[in-house]
């Protein structure tokens, strides 16, 4: 196994550690699935140690990131914000897992991190003895002496972590029947609004990381960001923007009640599974309705984001339903995000292809919101690459006068930008197609050296 593959194992191990925390919060003691996951995590650790020919795996935690051998694990840092938060609260700077670490030790460590009464176990004076007393003979930690030594990370990583954390925390709370963290949700959305006004591309860059986890956190974050962007483009005020962001962030909360075996099943769902899945919208409305202080718009969006403007779709409502304007906007963003999402089991669609499919099924969408969406995001979004009808490639640098006539910069061409299909600029040239991200990697370097 090469360095590259063993580094992947380190990332898997961190994911397993984060999962161990989730399992303890969500599942009863002795749950066989949780035990199997811990066994698998320990096996990954052994494989890493074996492949690297070392005695241990040491994880470092700094500035909101998990690092191995000095390299940050971005994806794990974004998703493992709960783990990072608990480590930060205990001033843990590094964790070392030696050869021979057992699944039981993993569980003990997770319990220790979750137990607020045991925070003192991580003080430098108590650390060694506490770990030994608990049977953590292969696991050790290094902690800072003083609390709060880590400077806050006022950047997009933190902004994304906050958004992802509220989605994850709320899904966990919903799965356990606990109260949701609504104040945190509003706070994270307000943070995102500030980011959108200053350095928005940073946030979306992070939002495009893989999100195959138990609660599809990344999907909810991306839908919220898209909905807020479109809403902002039509000029809504900050209060409405906060409502849209919060509602979109919580739109799939009902999935916390759907068994993960159905939620993440690859392939076609049978009738019973489909019924269970389609109930997530009603579950979502029920969860939010039972909370104090939830704005009605969030309840409505959770219920009706799979309904067409005419009320077709699911859930199979008791009365002929009427989705609100906000629900109709979130539906557009939800479907678009799902179509453009890259998953191991399906090819991603370009934004133009996704819009074409939505146009094919246009009765399912509010056409005015779809138009507003295209106006805000574009069929060929800024930053994407296109193939032109004359065989050249180009990068989209701005929206053009029409959706299929963006302002582009031709690969290897002059530095000036030109509008596709406009006399005096790129006359008699059209956009043949948008390039997928995987194709863009070929065009990208050529553009930059051209």
């Amino acid at each position, binding site marked *: 196994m090469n360095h590259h593959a063993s580094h*992947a194992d380190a990332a898997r191990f961190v994911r397993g550690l984060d999962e161990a925390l989730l399992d303890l919060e969500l599942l009863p003691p002795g749950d066989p699935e949780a035990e199997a996951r811990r066994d698998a995590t320990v096996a990954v650790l052994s494989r890493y140690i074996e492949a690297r020919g070392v005695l241990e795996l040491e994880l470092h935690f700094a500035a909101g990131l998990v690092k191995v051998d000095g390299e940050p694990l971005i994806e794990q840092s974004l998703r493992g914000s709960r783990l990072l938060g608990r480590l930060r609260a205990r001033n843990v700077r590094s964790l070392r897992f030696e050869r021979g670490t057992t699944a039981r030790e993993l569980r003990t460590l997770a319990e220790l991190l979750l137990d607020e009464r045991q925070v003192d176990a991580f003080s430098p004076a108590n650390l060694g003895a506490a770990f030994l007393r608990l049977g953590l003979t292969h696991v050790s930690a290094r902690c800072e002496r003083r609390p709060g030594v880590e400077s806050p990370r006022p950047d997009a990583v933190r902004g994304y972590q906050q958004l992802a954390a509220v989605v994850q925390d709320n899904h966990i709370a919903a799965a356990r029947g606990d109260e949701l963290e609504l104040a945190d949700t509003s706070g994270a959305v307000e943070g995102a609004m500030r980011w959108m006004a200053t350095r928005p591309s940073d946030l979306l860059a992070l939002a495009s990381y*893989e999100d195959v986890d138990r609660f599809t956190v990344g999907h909810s974050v991306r839908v919220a960001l898209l909905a807020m962007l479109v809403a902002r483009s039509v000029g809504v005020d900050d209060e409405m923007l906060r409502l849209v962001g919060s509602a979109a962030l919580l739109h799939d909360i009902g999935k916390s009640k759907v068994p993960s075996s159905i939620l993440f099943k690859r392939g076609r769902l049978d009738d019973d599974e489909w019924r269970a899945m389609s109930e997530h919208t009603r579950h979502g409305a029920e969860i939010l309705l039972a909370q104090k202080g939830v704005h009605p*718009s969030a309840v409505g969006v959770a219920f009706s984001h799979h309904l067409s403007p005419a009320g077709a779709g699911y859930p199979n409502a008791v009365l002929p339903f009427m989705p609100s*304007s906000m629900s109709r906007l979130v539906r557009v963003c939800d479907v678009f995000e799902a179509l453009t999402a*890259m998953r191991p089991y399906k090819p991603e669609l370009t934004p133009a292809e996704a819009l074409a499919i939505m146009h094919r099924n246009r009765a399912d969408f509010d*056409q005015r919101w779809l138009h507003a969406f295209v106006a805000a995001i574009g069929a060929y979004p800024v930053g994407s690459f296109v193939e032109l009808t004359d065989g050249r490639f180009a990068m989209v640098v701005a*929206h053009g006068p029409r959706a*299929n006539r963006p302002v582009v910069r031709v690969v290897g061409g002059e530095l000036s*930008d030109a509008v596709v299909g406009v006399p005096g600029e790129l006359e008699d040239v059209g956009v043949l197609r948008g390039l997928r991200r995987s194709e863009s990697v070929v065009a990208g370097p050529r553009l930059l*050296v051209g």
Partner: protein
Amino acid sequence: MERPSRWSTPRPPATPRTRLVPPPDGFAAGEQASSLPTSTFGARDPEVERGLSEAAGDVLLRFLAREAAGQDDESATQSATSGRREDARNAVGQDELTALFEHLHAAPAEPPDDLSADLEAERAFVLADVAAAGDGLARQIASRELQAFSTDPLRLVDLGREVLVRLADGIDTLPPAGFGSCALLRVLRIAARRALAEATRSPAPLEVRE
């Protein structure tokens, strides 16, 4: 439309990036999860070009590294099967793209409804649904609020004629042995009909939606 006349960042050097070693798999595992370019939210962000070029280079290296490593995908067969099905469903021809753009160009750019539009109507339908078919605490809360809704003529009138008709007619068509027997829905139907009648007598007519 505002157009940038020039790239806002300096032109990158003509030499290839020096980082030829594949990035550690911490980054590699962080596969992009969306086909949207990362700049979608910041069309004029000065960092766009640099960010995109770096992302493009990293993705290319990841692909090369993965091929070399021989991807271990335990569900490769399953993925292939569902992938083929997905492919067929999601295939988009040039004619469809043309139709999309023609539609976008031809259709008048009407502004969407205000984001607060129909929130109250949606609330009424959600409450009716959860009160009739929901569960537990949510059902109790929905029942309570629906009751309050039904006894508040002003709130009902504010829903507008179309929504009231839809509510009343919808409840009328429910099977008597099923949700039609729900007392709360029957009360709502009566209240909706009454509100319609009141509004008809009222000098200020109910708003009729287009």
